[in-house]
Each structure stands twice: as structure tokens, then as C-alpha cells.
């Protein structure tokens, strides 16, 4: 996989080193410090930082503006973009806008349904779906063409990512779905939070059987649990999430004030185990509103210091 963009994330992955990414959710307000403060906490321990796009359909500061804040700090953002809120005009326009600030990574998503968020009564757009969004960015970058066929003068240099959820149903479609995203042109994948490691490894087996691990960089997604309550909630309430009962039990088995630490330990153990899975090229550590724990996780998992890349 030769390097096609100035993305630092792409360079690290291409060099064969394990990449580490994390994410920050923008604030529900306009204070830029909410984002820069979070970024400060993790910047030395990750290669790139995803900025979520109105995650769970709750209205927040836009991902693009927050990504620009990271750029101003000299950091490497991953612009998350959902197809829920934008038609193809807005999508292409935002991509160009991001590229104009030298934002070089994008994560193409369809987005949670708006009924989960604060605008339940609103419309959704879904002019494109996530796979078509991948195709669109690749076309803009590689062919220097808009969807409408016109030429783009200075095409956006985006390293193109997408999500994969090995745990959603139907399971047998989960490898073919990755294949489809690869065929559409995706270059890196950040997975849904992994708690059921056996099932993830089974999915990776299917991925390797088809040689897909050689065509895309897979970053295993991890979110440390803060408590047994959180684990139970994720298990029962969050669609597409697979939290094994043993994990809930393990957290519930330690005193309340120690559950958070247990959650961190579990997360680190998971990374240790997944490091040896052929085809896993890095980790996406999503410590939701718990960014201060990312350094500990990265260090104890043996992923620190982060590589430096010549520009």
C-alpha cells in the first residue's frame, strides 16, 4: 500500500508500525477550549485524533471546525463525516473546506439515526450512504472530479477511512460488508468497540481468509468501561454492541470505587491480546469523556512513545 496523501496516519500505517488514534467529541457550545483541552490531554500519546460528527445525533459544534482547532495546535485530525445531515453538495463542499486546512484524514459514516438525539422531529438526508461517501471522496481525490463530473482544480488529499462493526447482525455479512467498503476504496478501518474478543478474532479470521487484511489497515476500537453499570447499559441498550456477560461480572465483582481501574485494566489486556492478531494494524482508543486515561492506556499497553514521522 503506497502512500497517497500527506496524512501522518497513513505514513505510520504504511511504515508497518501500529498506529494509535483516539477521539474527541466536540462540545455542545461554542467554546473552543472544550476541544483544545481534551486534545492537550492525549496529543502526545496518539497519532491522530478523530473528531466525531454530532455523535448519537446530538447537536454539537461541527466536526470540521473542531478539526481546524486541532490543526491550529499542530495536531493530526480525522474528520468524521456522517451522511445523515448533508446532501452531496454539502458533503463535497465540506471535504474541500477540510482539505483547504490540510486536513488529510476522513472517516465516512452513515451516522446514528436522528431519533437517538436531540432533534427527533427532524429530517435526515442520506442522499449518499457511507459506501457511496467512500466512493465520492476517492473519486474527488484520485480522479479530481466532482460527482457531477466537473474537474476539481486542487483535489482534496484525503486518507479515507470508515467504520466496521464486526458485532452487528447479520454476522455472516460482516466480512462481505468490509469487502464492499474496500471495493469502494476505503483505506483504513476503525472498528466498533471490541469487548467480545473471541468474536472479533473470528471476524478477523474471515477477513484474512479473503486477504482483506492486506488491502486495508484495520484499527481495533476500544472503549474502557467506567463501571459495571456502564457495561450493563452498553450490553442491553446500545444497538450493535456485544458485551459478554463475563465482562459485566468481572466489573461487578470489584468494589465500586475500583471498577474504573478494572475497566482500564481490561482495555489494556484487550490491546495486549489483539496486538498479536494478524491484520490488526493499530488501535482506536475511544475513552468517552475520559480522555485523561488515554495516556495510561497507551503507555501500559506498550504503545508509547509514538513514532515520529518526517514531514
Amino acid at each position: 500500500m503506497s502512500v497517497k496523501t500527506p496524512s501522518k496516519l497513513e505514513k505510520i500505517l504504511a511504515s508497518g508500525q501500529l498506529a494509535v488514534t483516539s477521539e474527541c467529541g466536540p462540545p455542545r457550545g461554542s467554546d473552543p477550549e472544550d476541544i483544545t483541552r481534551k486534545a492537550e490531554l492525549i496529543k502526545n500519546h496518539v497519532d491522530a485524533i478523530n473528531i466525531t460528527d454530532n455523535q448519537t445525533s446530538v447537536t454539537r459544534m461541527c466536526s470540521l471546525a473542531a478539526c481546524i482547532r486541532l490543526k491550529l495546535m499542530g495536531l493530526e485530525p480525522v474528520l468524521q463525516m456522517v451522511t445523515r445531515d448533508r446532501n452531496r453538495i454539502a458533503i463535497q463542499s465540506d471535504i474541500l473546506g477540510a482539505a483547504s486546512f490540510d486536513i488529510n484524514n476522513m472517516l465516512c459514516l452513515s451516522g446514528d439515526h436522528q431519533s437517538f438525539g436531540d432533534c427527533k422531529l427532524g429530517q435526515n438526508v442520506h442522499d449518499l450512504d457511507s459506501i457511496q461517501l467512500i466512493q465520492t471522496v476517492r473519486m474527488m481525490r484520485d480522479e479530481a472530479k466532482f460527482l457531477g463530473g466537473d474537474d476539481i482544480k486542487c483535489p482534496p488529499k484525503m486518507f479515507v477511512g470508515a467504520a466496521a462493526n464486526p458485532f452487528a447482525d447479520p454476522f455472516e455479512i460482516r466480512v462481505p460488508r468490509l469487502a464492499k467498503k474496500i471495493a469502494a476504496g476505503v483505506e483504513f478501518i476503525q472498528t466498533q468497540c471490541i469487548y467480545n474478543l473471541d468474536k472479533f478474532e473470528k471476524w478477523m479470521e474471515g477477513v484474512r481468509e479473503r486477504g482483506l487484511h492486506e488491502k486495508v489497515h484495520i484499527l481495533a476500537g476500544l472503549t474502557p468501561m467506567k463501571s459495571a453499570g456502564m457495561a450493563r447499559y452498553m450490553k442491553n441498550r446500545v444497538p450493535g454492541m456485544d458485551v459478554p456477560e463475563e465482562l459485566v461480572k468481572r466489573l461487578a465483582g470489584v468494589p465500586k470505587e475500583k471498577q474504573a481501574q478494572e475497566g482500564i485494566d481490561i482495555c489494556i489486556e484487550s490491546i495486549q491480546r489483539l496486538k498479536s492478531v494478524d491484520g490488526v494494524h493499530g488501535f482506536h482508543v475511544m475513552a468517552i469523556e475520559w480522555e485523561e486515561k488515554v495516556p495510561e492506556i497507551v503507555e501500559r499497553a506498550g504503545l508509547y512513545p509514538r513514532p515520529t514521522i518526517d514531514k
Partner: protein
Amino acid sequence: MIVGQQKPLEEIWDMIKDHSRVLVFGCNTCVAVCQQGGNKEAEIIASLLRMKATQEGLDIEIKDGGIERQCEHEFFESATKSLEWADAVVSTACGIGVQFLAEKYESLPVYPGLNTTFLGAVEKFGVYTERCQACGQCVLGLTGGICPIARCAKRLMNGPCGGSTRGKCEINKDLDCAWQLIIDRLKAMDKMDNYEKIIPVKDWSSDRAGGPRKFVREDIQV
């Protein structure tokens, strides 16, 4: 067929209470199937409105009537007299019928008695579910005969999304995930290869997006 749901009586009442000769006008085809806007239902709504008028002490004459279809000229003839009598009409047709009626009687206030809900099927008696959003370019041939536009909450053309759980959609445990249904059908037809064919960016110009649509057949016009 077109499925509609009757509006709350209070809402209908608020629309008509300032008129003196009200006709509740049924449409006996699509919406009658789900027993919401047929001529029989128009009769019931009229009698409920009469009771309401009596309760409120208002002197409103309320009659009922109806035709086979309010979306075709030829059926209206039989109702000319009652439509000319009324100073307001509550049409219990779908939105199409309501508009068609309004177009015919320029100065007559016409109110909707139903909320037009969707294009659907009778799953069983009393259960109606959406099947089509009239996108104008049918893709059912690619998706195992199940519509990802009308039946996937995110109208994903290359789904399923990551929220599909045990066959159900992420937005509601009682709602089938369209993509689970598509995959089940593809499997049953031994056509799973179809799944990996990417459905390209859709041309929505034949959909609502392209503006109001029109279909003209020169060959059969008289």
C-alpha cells in the same frame, strides 16, 4: 395502497366549527381498506361532529357523503349536488383526493380528515406497513425484492448499518431491519453474490428531490 389515519376529532372540529353547512366526504378505495376514510367512516365522523356541535350549542348542519375515488374526475359527478350545498368539506381521502377536490371547487374550503401516512400493504387485518416511497427508479431487482429506501430507516443502499441487531432496526426493536430481510431473501434465492455489488450513488432526480412529478401518456389521451 395509500394508508391514512384519521385525524383526532378535536382537530377536525377546530377546522370546521366556523362553518354552517359541512360535508364529510369519504373516499371508498385505498384509505377505506384500513377503515379510516371510506364512506362508512365519513358517516361516523359526521355523526360525531354533529354530537359535538350539539354539545357546543352551535348550529352547524353536517352531512356525509362519498364517492369511489377522489383522485379521478369521473367519480365526482354523482356528488355534485352535495358538494355545491356545502360551505366547507372535510375530505377523508388521502392528500391527493383532498387536493383534487379543492382544485375542482375554487372557493370552497376543503379540510383534510386524515393524515396521509404511507404507501403500504395489509400485513394482516388491522396491520398496515410501509413498502414504497415512490422514488421513481425502482431498485427492488437488486435488493431481493425488499425496498431499502422505504424500509431502512437510513435508506442505505449498501447496508446494513452497524446498528442492526437480531434482525431488528436500531431505531426500534419492533421494526425489522430491511437489510436483514434483504440478506435473508438473497440467501434464500442463492444470490448472496449480489450483496457485494455496490449500488452506486443514486439518481434522486426522479424522486421528490426532482420537484413535483408528472407522467404523460400521449398515446392514450383523448
